């Protein structure tokens, strides 16, 4: 992992009141609170630390839902992880900094039920079918089970 990259990430982490952990030779993880996410991402993008967002992953962490941003620059991978409560899953959107993030946020909205404040397409479904019942919880939560979803979507033929 290049020293310069590591140092710059460390600086951003300190500004966001967190610290970076080196997972492997070329991978760093930074845990950031929701209130500092935009500031951190903005610094990473605008200062040129990384100019490519690979994707955004959603995770079910029990009581919380994790949102991990994956950045990539040369051989360096940077993971930025933040969490939101399952009981009130609202997160901040980064589409005004990185327009390309819009689809990834829509996907997490569909599959985990997280509402991204600032994303203009939160009322649209990206992946789930039109026949998805409103009261059915998002599919990728650990509590959602495939057989139940299939029954509700009428995919099981008796």
């Amino acid at each position, binding site marked *: 992992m290049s020293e310069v990259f590591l140092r710059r990430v460390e600086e951003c982490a300190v500004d966001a009141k967190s610290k970076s952990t080196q*997972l*492997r030779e*070329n*991978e760093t993880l930074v845990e950031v609170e929701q209130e500092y996410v935009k500031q951190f991402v903005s610094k990473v993008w605008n200062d040129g630390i990384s*100019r*490519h*967002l*690979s*994707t955004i*992953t*959603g*995770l*079910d962490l029990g009581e919380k839902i994790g949102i*991990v941003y*994956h950045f*990539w620059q*040369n*051989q360096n*991978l940077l*993971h930025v992880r933040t969490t939101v409560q399952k009981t009130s899953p609202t997160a901040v959107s980064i589409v005004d900094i*990185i*327009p*390309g*993030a*819009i*689809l*990834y946020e*829509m*996907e997490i909205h569909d*599959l985990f039920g997280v509402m991204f404040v600032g994303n*203009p*397409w939160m*009322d*649209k*479904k*990206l*992946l*789930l*079918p*039109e026949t998805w019942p409103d009261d059915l919880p998002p*599919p*990728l939560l650990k509590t*959602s089970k*495939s057989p139940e*979803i299939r029954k509700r979507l009428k995919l099981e033929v008796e």
Partner: protein
Amino acid sequence: MSESSNPTRREETAGLMKYSTENLVPFGPIHPALKEPEYFKLVLEGEKIVDVIPRIGYVHRGLEKAAESRPWVQNMYMFERTCGICSFVHSLCYGQAVEELTIYKVPKRAKYIRLIIAELERIHSHLLWVGLMGHWAGFETLFMWVWRDREIVLDIVETISGNRVHKSMNAICGVRRDMPENMEDHIVEKMKYLADRARYYREIIDTEETMLERTQKVGKLTADTVEKLCAVGPMARYVGIQNDVRLNAPYAAYDEVPFSIVTRNEGDVQGLLRLRLDEMIVSTDMVSYAVKHLPDGPIRVKIPPIIPAGEHSSHCEAPRGEIFYYVKSTGGRTPDRVKSRQPTMANLPAALEMLKGQTIADVPIVLTAIDPCFGCMDRMSFLDTETNKQWTWSGEQLRQYGIKYYKDRG
């Protein structure tokens, strides 16, 4: 789907009017686990497209959820079937993400074999795409010739792996089958033939009237837009951005086999055609080199069915761009979370941006230019804001309209 049957779609039309045309409206029909059937709604002002609304989810099957209840090895073959055209790279990327969590290392011979199959896949995918571009532009002969050449690649792949499409060559920490004996000369000869054919097709696209008219100055984007939209693969390289996982973060045997990145600056569909054909030529060289320098040794390391806890992500360069896999294990027989992000999803915002300002006749060419899976353009709906007319066309009707439009234009 017809307009009248779905009340949600009416709301979409109404909502569309609220968005101004300056807004970047990236959205896409491609789901990370799958591609194909999409439904586009194009908003027109006269002949020009001002907005595009796609509806995807037609191929959403729920792979990521299913992966959480299947063993590690089974998942590899399930993720392979995410896409028929770049299936090997999916299983490769998943395998690489999981391998890092174990203490075992992939043998060198396996890395070389992985490179050979991955590059063969790239050749077949690019040939498929060039043929389709010919088909959409009305140049059927090109389509037939290119797909006939593609059969050469598929024959080699079948001899090595046993299947033409879903090769199932990967295993966790290795490959399942070895290279057959005495195939070296045959492969090198066929690679040389394919490289010559690629140069010939290159000439055709540079000189043939039909192709030039449909592809020059069509689908233009700037490097700045592409970077902001985080496009990957050829979509980034055709405006000059050096985004290639094989160069920036080499995996498998890419750090040992000589490789040169191909970028172009035209920023239009013709540039994409040239780029993919040039990449094909580079791939044929790589396959020939790898086959001649294949190291000896085992092809696989057997590992226990339980993967230690941890999380890891891996990316690879598929024919369409960067594939990204993230894997999380809690030390069990099944993964805790697998996330796969296909390249077409990353390219979709850029594709929709490319469509703006084009005419209806250019739509099939522009949409195919990003190289999505080709069953996708099966239905399109149009809304003309001046006359308030709405109509629906199938992909084939659109293709024939495009051919007729350019023929009449002269």
